[in-house]
């Protein structure tokens, strides 16, 4: 099997930089693509990414570049870590340099607005790739960058994709598990952001752990319903990319989506929050995509609907909470029964 002495990472945001850091610490030469030349310069000259991963020194084996062609020529294993709204454009450009031998694993949470396409579908539509995978799990970038133990799921239809990614990323603080349900891993990773946003609202309102647990379990149920409608295996949502990611994201104030929810609960405007946060909160886009999909497919997703109304129709939080709590409660797994 191909020896990946060099690995490419597309996207130097906090998650992309963190994955590059793990690769570098595993002894891999890592080519990290950033759109901006000044960011490349900062990483190469100071070993810091002060904007997206402040406080961490990056290994010397990481080289930042804004030359996609160079990355594709230098590495046949590539991690794509760009925001969902730029994936198509980036993939199209990558497609100029990729061959059938390349393995691309994306770590992008979310689905494409309007088309409801998953990121692996976007990659497939824009490139010659077949060997595509997704990485998803309870992976808060700062904790992983600090080498705190965690795990993740790499899902792909191709064993080779898992094996090579596992060899590149797995170490004594980062456990890499194998999955085949690409749809489930992608849906879980994107959908959890909506629930994290709702959990942030609950935290912002000062609600306690019971409320949070209710939100998480019913959120997981909605995730499974949504995933099943997209073709995922329900079991996936009980694992790393479902429950695991949901717990991490909803429990942590580090999560951007959580932060957006908490600030909304305190009466701040979405536009103001987004302007101040320089990183993308995927839950904001995902809530719209999931809501539109649910309407189209006639899926009953009350938490998604409430988050959507909060973000896009400016409904009041107390009213939304009251509405959610007035929904009749029936058999717990009714909506998941065949």
């Amino acid at each position: 099997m191909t020896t990946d002495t060099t690995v490419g990472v597309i996207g130097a945001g906090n998650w992309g930089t963190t994955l590059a850091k793990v690769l570098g610490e595993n002894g891999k030469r890592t080519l990290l693509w950033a759109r901006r030349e000044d960011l490349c310069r900062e990483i190469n000259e100071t070993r810091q990414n002060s904007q997206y991963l402040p406080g961490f020194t990056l290994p010397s084996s990481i080289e930042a570049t804004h030359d996609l062609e160079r990355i594709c020529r230098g590495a046949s294993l590539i991690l794509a870590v760009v925001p969902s709204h730029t994936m198509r454009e980036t993939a199209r450009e990558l497609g100029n340099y990729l061959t059938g031998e390349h393995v691309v694993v994306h770590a992008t949470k979310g689905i494409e607005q309007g088309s409801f396409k998953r990121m692996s579908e976007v990659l497939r539509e824009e490139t010659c790739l077949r060997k595509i995978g997704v990485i998803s799990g309870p992976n808060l970038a700062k904790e992983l960058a600090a080498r705190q133990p965690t795990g993740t799921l790499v899902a792909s239809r191709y064993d080779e994709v898992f094996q090579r990614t596992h060899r590149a990323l797995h170490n004594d603080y980062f456990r890499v598990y194998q999955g085949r349900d690409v749809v489930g891993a992608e849906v879980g990773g994107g959908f959890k952001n909506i629930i994290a946003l709702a959990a942030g609202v609950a935290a912002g309102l000062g609600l306690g752990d019971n409320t949070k647990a209710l939100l998480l379990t019913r959120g997981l149920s909605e995730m499974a319903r949504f995933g099943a409608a997209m073709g995922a295996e329900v079991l996936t949502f009980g694992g790393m990319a479902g429950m695991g990611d949901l717990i991490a994201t909803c429990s942590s104030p580090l999560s951007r989506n959580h932060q957006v929810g908490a600030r909304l609960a305190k009466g701040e405007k979405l536009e103001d929050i987004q302007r101040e946060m320089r990183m993308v909160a995927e839950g904001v886009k995902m809530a719209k995509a999931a809501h539109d999909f649910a309407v189209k497919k006639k899926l009953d997703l009350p938490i998604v609907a409430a988050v959507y109304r909060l973000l896009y129709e400016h409904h009041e939080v107390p009213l939304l909470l009251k509405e959610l709590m007035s929904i009749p409660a029936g058999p717990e797994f009714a909506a998941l029964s065949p």
Partner: protein
Amino acid sequence: MRPEHRERARIEAATRVVDRYVASLRPPEEVGLEALVSDTLYHERRRLERERNDPRAAEDHAFYQKVQRRLRHASARDLRELLDQIALRFASEIVGNFDDRVYKLSTTVIPTGLSVLLTAMSPGKLGSLGSLRGGLAEHVQIQGEVDHVRKLLDAGTLVVVPTHSSHLDSIVLGYAVHLMGLPPLLYGAGLNLFNNPVTSFFMNNLGAYRVDRKKSAAIYKDVLKEFATVALELDYNNLFFPGGTRSRSGAVEQKLKRGLLGTGVRAYVGNLQSNRDKPNLFVVPCTISYKLGLEAETLIDDHLKEVGKNRYIIEDDEFSRPRQVLNFLSNLVSLDSRVVITFSRPLDVVGNYVDEDGQSLDPRGRVVDPASYVCQDGEPVHDHQRDEEYTNELSRAIAREFLRDNVAMSTHVVGHALLEMIRRENPDMDLYRLLRTGGRAPSVTLGELARESERVVGALRRSPRGPRLSDELGRDPEQVVDDALRAFGTYHAHPAAVRRGERVFHEDRNLLLYYANRLKGYDLSSASAASTASAGGAAA
């Protein structure tokens, strides 16, 4: 297949399969070898019990008795020898008694013979050989990427993968390939076709090798696949029916069998490893569309009776009755109806489109080197799991092309429209009861049926996934209905629907379902409900 190639393919297929088995065994080797031989004995004996009356069974029986006797005290070396013998025996049967001289003759004679067969029902068309060919050509319409396919012949080896709804398919396609000026295609035909009075001549003398679907031993299936792989490596253009068997429901196949399809990527890797001059393989999806289904009654009955467990082999259908075949062909000619063969855009072995020069293209039209898909560190390698996934990708691409290039005809549209109207009239009845009883009213008005048919044609025109529409669907809705009713009335023992006065009576709703199912897979909005309840779709 040339005699020297035939022998090479026979030996190569058997040896590769046994070598692969042996390489995968864990020590002690004899345990695994004995398990393989015993498993084959078990499956073959079960088959022979079911085929006691078959004259060929006695020979097989004697062979396996010998195997059984040797098995008792066999060393590892003996076991390997037994496995070799079994594999070679299977390979010999697959290759068959193929006479190259007869083959050469038949590739010239058979198309003419087929012309005679098809035009015999239309005496006015009898005449010189040239006009006979013209007569048949009028009823076999070939369209799509014909020139593209012809060009690719110079750039590599073709694998033609058609839809399958009738035993006539291989004959009609063989004829189409001849008309296109392509060399005959090698294909695996069921043993039942070699025994069938109508087809045995064609099967024995055209490029068919034998496939015995009653043989369930794993080693038999592997030898069969390996034979196809070697044939591709030897540059024989192949024909596989990727649906595996005739579509029972009438629907265009969407779940394809990966077995033979997977030989494409295996052969491609083999070609690259042996540095063949033109290693590329081109997969050509092809839809064969009939206005009437020769075996429609048997197939849909089988589909409805045995949903989920269809009989894989049917030996007593319309195709086994020469009179019925002649009747069907006669209708084909007298109805002025056509068999439409559409060649879709060719694909490479991982499902990319290829251009006219044989270059693979990515979805954005950029040239891709297909070898890069099967290389590791620059070297072509077999990887079973990877190649299975490539074959899945390929089968999805073929299924997409099938839907796009399927040709909708008046019988499909009117079958769908009428069934949908019956279903709307009886919302409380499940499909099976509806098919049996016909619901509350035995008829609909002609005008309503024409309007519903027009709506279905409109939905088909808007559907981004296909199908193509046959010329008759461009006429007035009333003429479309007339055309379908005329076709329904001429061939089947009980017409699917008949017109009496200004009303249309549904007589055989199973047949309506069969024809309606040809439009399964397209978004026909509310009209889709009845036909999509086909419970199982194309038979696997």
